[in-house]
């Protein structure tokens, strides 16, 4: 009987000791990765775009310990990018404070202390930098999260890897600028007035329609006076007809306007389409000033 009691006491003591040791160990895992919002990116804003998401670390042990995090894309060791077929949109992942995760599942950054029995959240950031461009579409990436115990020795992976999907959306965008000469978009100068001086039959003036877009575009041109230079004060005067060409295409300026479609290169500089305006019959027109307003609208298709 005494032996049985001694055996039971020893069993209880060893069980208790095991339990105490187990809770004393650092036992942190990634308990949750919140859904990562899409990064909606407009290349022509000239601004970086970011979204935040959270990763929760839960320490089921009783001791505090510090952990770091590594995040990798399917192809590691290269700059991180959202992909859609052969097109891509580069981005970075940032730890609070701005440190950038390298695209390597064995290179953790950060150090966060998680108390025993507690859960701690860290807010991470997805950033698409300014000055990038890609065709309008949705781009995606799969992220693998791995936790490391941070100590004075080598970092040791702990817990189970988690995965999450992330995406960037390049919206259909198109911009137009009318310039006096060819150049990068917005350069060398914008032109808001085309002056023929004294009207003469067949006179031609030229300008440049600069377009940049993330998709093929429809270029729609409307004329306030339906393709005529109208006398500024003599409202009943029929005016002087003129014709318009953009990128070699005749653009009728009748009642409904006209549109041409083009596929500009997907670049921030865009493309320069030559535009020419040619004056028609001027015979018998009253003296004075004549004018019209052309409105060039570009829309992504």
């Amino acid at each position, binding site marked *: 009987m005494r032996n049985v009691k001694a055996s039971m006491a020893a069993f209880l003591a060893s069980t208790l000791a095991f339990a105490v040791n187990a809770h004393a160990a650092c036992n942190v895992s990634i308990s949750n990765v919140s859904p990562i919002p899409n990064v909606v990116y407009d290349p022509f804003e000239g601004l970086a775009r970011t979204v935040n998401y959270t990763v929760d670390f839960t320490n089921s042990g009783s001791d505090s310990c510090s952990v770091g995090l590594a995040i990798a894309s399917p192809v590691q060791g290269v700059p991180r990018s959202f992909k859609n077929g052969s097109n891509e949109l580069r981005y970075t992942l940032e730890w609070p404070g701005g440190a950038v995760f390298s695209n390597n599942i064995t290179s953790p950054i950060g150090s966060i202390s998680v108390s025993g029995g507690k859960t701690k959240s860290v807010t991470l950031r997805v950033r698409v930098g300014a000055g990038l461009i890609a065709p309008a579409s949705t781009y995606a990436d799969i992220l693998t999260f791995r936790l490391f115990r941070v100590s004075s020795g080598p970092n040791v992976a702990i817990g189970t890897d988690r995965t999450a999907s992330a995406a960037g959306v390049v919206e259909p965008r198109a911009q*137009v600028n009318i310039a006096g000469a060819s150049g990068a978009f917005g350069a060398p100068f914008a032109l808001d*007035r085309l002056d*023929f001086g004294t009207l003469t039959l067949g006179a031609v003036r030229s300008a440049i329609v600069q377009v940049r877009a993330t998709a093929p575009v429809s270029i729609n041109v409307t004329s306030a006076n339906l393709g005529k230079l109208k006398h500024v004060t003599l409202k009943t005067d029929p005016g002087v007809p003129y014709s318009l060409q953009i990128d070699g295409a005749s653009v009728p300026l009748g009642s409904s306007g006209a549109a041409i479609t083009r596929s500009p290169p997907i670049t921030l500089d865009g493309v320069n389409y030559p535009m020419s305006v040619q004056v028609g019959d001027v015979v018998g027109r009253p*003296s004075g000033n004549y004018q019209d307003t052309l*409105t*060039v609208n*570009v829309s992504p298709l």
Partner: protein
Amino acid sequence: MSNIRFLLLMAVVLFPASRFNAIAGDTANMEVHSSVPIACQAEIVSSQLLTITPLAINAVVRQTCNTTHDLSVTYNAASVISPSKLFITLEATLPSFKLSSAQVFAGLEPTESDKPVTIRYNAGTTAQRLELAQGWGITVTPR
């Protein structure tokens, strides 16, 4: 209250902010300007002396003027001793006003046209009427 929260949540889910982003397209305006300078001229196309006593002349004048203008029928004041008896019409219209050496048809619309002019005068000497018949002219003045 919970219903309102639910509706707000559904609104955010169904209509995220990106759907209300700026217009995808873009517009640029350009004014096209030009001008037509003033150009006016007038000439006597024909002049027929019907009678010298009294003086009766039927003429045609050609106006080419692209702005509002005045047309003056001019003469030597010395040859018209009785201005009140000098009657001039342009396209059957009396002049707007009379000067000592001209009768003026003012505020004429831009035109390219030939118009009849009549001159009637029953005063002075034959020599004076002859001088008037041979010496009248026209001038055009843009406004």
